[in-house]
């Protein structure tokens, strides 16, 4: 499995993975070579209720996830696998526990299923480790070295999302013959929600484009924008974007999976403001660019409504948050704002003039 993963260059999926958009084989190698007995964590704690893919996979096909985790453990010489589930996700917990006992009985790996807080930040890999170590307050760890060298109780630790593990299993079952682009082989799972009649979770091969997602759901009206990549995804007017890591990154969008479709009538300025406020409220409080940055970002966006056109200031702050925050939370927190500015700068200027072209802000 180590060999196949290395040959194909399979990448980690989702913000909870230790190898987000990076080849998983590299971090296995690091963990094997690091001092101490390695451990494997299945990170299925995603508190965003609209990002369903990981919970769904673990609950619906726990064997695919946990068997694959045990295989990773064997590959890197880890005697223990820990499955980390959101405390509110009873179904995932129950099913994972049943399968964990089963897999434990047929392998030499010990498997524990435990829960963590139903908080967005608790899904970030280093904060997941903090939760697993029993910390009563979560905050991100300094990196490097990352969890693959200094992870659970200081042991080398590989954290993968159920999505990554399911891909690995597919890789094994199909003997390395997986679809998609060479740079990001396999398929990716997307949750689609927002102004749709019914939410959906679907899988796209990485040589597809996001436009296919539009076919899976019915919208209430016409699409004004989409937020691609979860809570801190990027805003875009078009879904003509490749469904793989490099393509999404080139379009400055998030790779985390969830895609929120927004109708006409939804204001991107207000949307960006709400995401900045979410970052301000939910951050762990450790580093200045995220803790103080998200606060000032929210204030700057608010002052746009007061007629100040501070677009350069907003861009500067967003850059600093992205470039200097400790973890992916802070590094992605300003993405909704930056991408909204890129795509909808005219709407920002309109707001500074006291006008909301979409009408959302004047109603509220």
């Amino acid at each position, binding site marked *: 499995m180590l060999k196949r993963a290395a040959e194909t260059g399979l990448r980690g999926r989702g913000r909870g993975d230790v190898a987000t958009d990076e080849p998983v084989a590299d971090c296995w190698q690091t963990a094997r070579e690091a001092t*101490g*007995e390695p*451990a494997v964590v299945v990170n299925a704690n995603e508190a965003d209720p609209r990002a369903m893919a990981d919970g769904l996979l673990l609950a619906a096909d726990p064997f695919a996830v946990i068997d694959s985790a045990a295989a990773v453990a064997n590959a890197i010489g880890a005697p*223990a696998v*820990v499955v980390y589930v959101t*405390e*509110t996700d*009873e179904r995932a*917990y129950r099913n994972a526990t049943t399968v964990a006992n089963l897999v434990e009985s047929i392998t030499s790996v*010990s498997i*524990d299923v*435990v*829960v*963590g807080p139903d908080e967005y*930040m608790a899904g970030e890999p280093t904060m997941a*480790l*903090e939760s*697993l*170590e*029993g*910390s*009563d*307050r*979560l*905050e*991100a*760890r*300094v*990196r*490097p070295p990352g969890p693959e*060298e*200094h992870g*659970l*109780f*200081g*042991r080398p630790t590989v954290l993968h999302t159920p999505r990554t593990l399911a891909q690995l299993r597919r890789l094994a079952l199909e003997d390395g013959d997986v679809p998609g682009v060479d740079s990001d082989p396999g398929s990716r799972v997307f949750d689609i929600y927002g102004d749709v009649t019914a939410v959906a979770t679907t899988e796209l091969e990485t040589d597809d484009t996001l436009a296919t997602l539009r076919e899976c759901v019915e919208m209430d009206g016409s699409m004004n924008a989409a937020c691609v990549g979860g809570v801190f995804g990027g805003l875009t007017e078009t879904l003509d974007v490749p469904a793989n890591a490099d393509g999404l990154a080139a379009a400055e969008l998030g790779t985390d999976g969830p895609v929120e479709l927004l109708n006409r009538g939804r204001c991107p300025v207000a949307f960006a403001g709400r995401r900045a406020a979410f970052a*301000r*409220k*939910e*951050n*762990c*409080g*450790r*580093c*200045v*660019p995220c*803790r*103080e940055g998200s*606060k*000032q970002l929210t*204030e700057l966006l608010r002052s746009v409504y007061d007629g100040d056109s501070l677009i350069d*200031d907003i861009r*500067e*702050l967003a*850059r*600093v948050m992205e*470039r*200097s*925050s*400790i973890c992916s939370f802070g590094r992605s927190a300003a993405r909704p704002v930056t991408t909204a500015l890129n795509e909808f700068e005219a709407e920002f200027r309109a707001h500074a003039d006291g006008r909301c072209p979409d009408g959302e802000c004047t109603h509220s």
Partner: protein
Amino acid sequence: MHPLMSSENPIPRVPDVTDPQPSTPLTEDFTTGTANDPACSGADGRVQLTVDGRSVTVDPGETLLDAIEAAGADVSALCHDDHSDEIAPRSECRTCVVETAAHGLVPACSFPVEEGMTVHTDSANATEVRDVNLDLVLSNHNLRCTTCGQNGRCELQDTAIQQEIEEPRYGVFDDRDAYEPIDDTSPFIQIDRNKCILCNRCVEACNDVQVEGVLRIEGSGEETRIAFQNESEAMAGSSCVSCGHCATVCPTGSITENGLADTATLPIPGFNQQNSIGEAIEYEPGESTDPDAPAEPTASTSLSGVAGVMDRARRQAETTVRDVAERAFLEGEHAAERVASSVLSEGQMFDIAEFVSKHRLDAVDVTETTCGYCSVGCRFDVYSKDDEVLGVRPTDAEHAPANDGFSTCVKGKFGYDFVNSDDRLEQPLIRENGVLREATWDAALERVATELSELTDEYGTDSIACFASSKCTNEENYLMQKFARQVLGTKNIDNCARLCHSSTVAALKQTVGYGAMTNRIEDVANTDCYLITGSNTTESHPVLATRIKQNVRDGADLIVFDPRKIGIAEHADQYTRVEPGHDVAWINGLIRYVIQHDLHDEAFIADNTHDFDELKRKVEPFTPDEVERLCGVDPADLASAAETIATADTCVFGWAMGMTQHAHGTQNVLALANLALVTGHLGKPNAGLSPFRGHNNVQGGGGDMGTLPSTLPGYQPLDDPAVLDAFEDVWDERPPAEVGLTVPEVFTEVHEGNVRGMYIMGENPALSEPDIGHAKDALEALEFLVVQDLFLTETAEHADVVLPAASFAEKSGTFTNTERRVQLVGQAVSPPDAARQDWSILQSLANRLGYEWSYESPAEIMDEISDLVPIYGGITHDRVAREGGLQWPCRDADDPGTPYLYEDGFNFEDGKARFVPADMGEPGELPGEEYPLTLTTGRVLYHFHTGTLTRRVNGIMSHVGESFVEIHPDTADQLGVSDGQNVRVESRRGSIVAAARVTDHADRGVVFMPMHFATGAVNELTQERFDPISGIPEYKISSVRISPDNA
């Protein structure tokens, strides 16, 4: 609640996997609220890299930040700490970000340094990140420099000035409604969270340096704040031990020493930190402190200082300051803040703050010195102003080897009220018609000279006894014994070390050769294993305990044998409770076990020792069962301790009064020395016999300087004519060759009429002697008593002449710490009024008695010491200053000193140690029907010895203001005593009243009392029973009875 969490069996959050990280039983329960970051240990080897085009090489352990500094570049690195390696990079402020070719933008404080790295500090991207992040820090900082206690010493201020911040992008935190009240509930430390930048240094200083687990970070996002692990709302309710580390490391005015809180604020009424914030949770002084003492920081009322300088400097600042000042007067309480925020830009604020702090800090003197409390020998800077001690802060690491350039304890950091205490003696006193009256120095010295001469003429030279002081400097103690032996010609010179480690000195001289700690504090900090017994290390030697706790947390084994479950035992891998008084039994039992199981170091024993067979014979009866019968030690505990000690690569044996203050104290220490020899843990780094000495200078002043009745300075024998010749050559008098009287013998001889006069320098035997009722009778019976002290102590009250002396802060000279390190003492302030340094008093008196002493300074006295004392042969003040302390033996100017003893053999002619088998003795008093409880005595963290210094420190008295007696809950039940209730404690000698503290620190049937108090003085109860070899009294065991006090 969600069904998952409300089920009968709660779902686990922590998986059942192995945690390989070391911890102690206490540290594993610390809730710091901070992440388990990877260690940032710096470069693996020597690494070469390029910074801004310059090639630099960093040494192993150095970081990217060091490389940047080496290249001459500069980044702010606000949250980075350089006080202690225990404080890891927090990497939260991101004001040290630089650009690298390989990794892009990285924080220089925590990013691993790599060979061949290319670093640009001045790229546009890096500069933008640093600038924005510095402004973000300022946006949440209550920037009110002119009312801030840290003004002029603030790292944020320094950075902002250096970066020429004029108007920060996001403003500063000045929303009065959002201010948190100042926490002013501690007598020593003030917390102003409005100025906190969440660098976390204080949390690590508390948890990782002091290993105390008081502070933590709580909350998330904007609610993130410094808080207490025990969930107390304020300092007063926390478990803080006031070590002061948090204040030492705080980069801003968020945690400050109370004494320094208003050092550099505008000298205008109301311009202080407290008024700036408006609301404070106040400190309530303890009941037993002086009710008139000021509990709040006071602001100076003088404007003239600023005005005077203003005429000469910076016209612009002058106008603004005056303007601000006038408005402040008009507008009242919150003016400081309001005026400042409405009138000034942040840049102007910095200008004025810098101006004010420079002027105000110019008036503050900083003096490097050595602590005057215990013998660890911490070094620090004393901040003083107008001859008043404001506070202390650690000095540079290279000048502070014992405290790692960093550590302090509550006494060393905050215990200085006594220096400026109102009841300091400021004039000599002479007793006339039964009353002490102020007199001139001339009259007082004349009276002393006359009376001492008369006694000598009438009753002989030996009718006078002198007591030296372990609190005074080496130079002063050398002169004290010289005064006794040369000027008075008496053989009777001793000091209070008789009462603490005389049995240690006696035992170690017999077995290994020197009566001193064999190793360095550095070795105590780095050994693989400890046996600690009879030492309440966390309370008596807090800074040493800190090093031990750190090392145990990092994996060293700690074994504690003690009758009480003391603080250090909480961190131990093995704590074994022993019954007081039978220590030889378990130590001999350990030796027997080691030999029986072939765990002894045969090669070491064969090459380096004599008389092993005698030892084997002597320990034979101490079978595990017999040991259990004698002192209650479980055979399994005995076995595990023996195996751990014997199989460790290195082991330090640490002890204090719990071993020594017994009627068989010498035997206890002999047994420990034998154990160290049998296991071969001597003569190498990180191992050794470590008696933790008591007073700041008990090693030097209480021993090395010959303030002992049995040896001359440097432990040179009285019966060696060559030695006596050498002294006679320099002194023009031959020292008495006879052995003189010990402290307890002096008291006996007073009652016999053989001693008629006493000269006591800086000691308080009226409280410290066993059975003080008897001792006070002796002091009364004397024909003439001189006491030289800071205060009218319980002893001075009996004196005929009292001479006002200088405190350690008011003198210069040297102290020798517990690891034999001679360190400089610097004079920070002047003695009050007519008080004088002890050496100068003795010189005047010697000259009045016909000798010609002409020392210009303590340095000259040290020159005479190095002439006469071979182990101090290479020690001069110049060298000590230059080399940061010297450890004896240091025989000549080229000798670098001796970090640890016996590397090349033991201190005997043949270089071999002697096994001197220890005999088990019985305690002098055993509990019986009439007095059924065993009383043991000792110290508490906040106080020192008889409390003459610490009972005068308000903050300390608010922590522990009165005597108490610890009683086990079961015993308390039987006696019908409840916690806090006053009880009467009686022995065959006396009776006192103290408050009961019901706790299981001590076992059933054993009670504990501290030794520091005059009211409820425990030495009313102790007995005059002495170790026959060393003469040390048995303070640790008396039989008592306790009853509720209904008076």
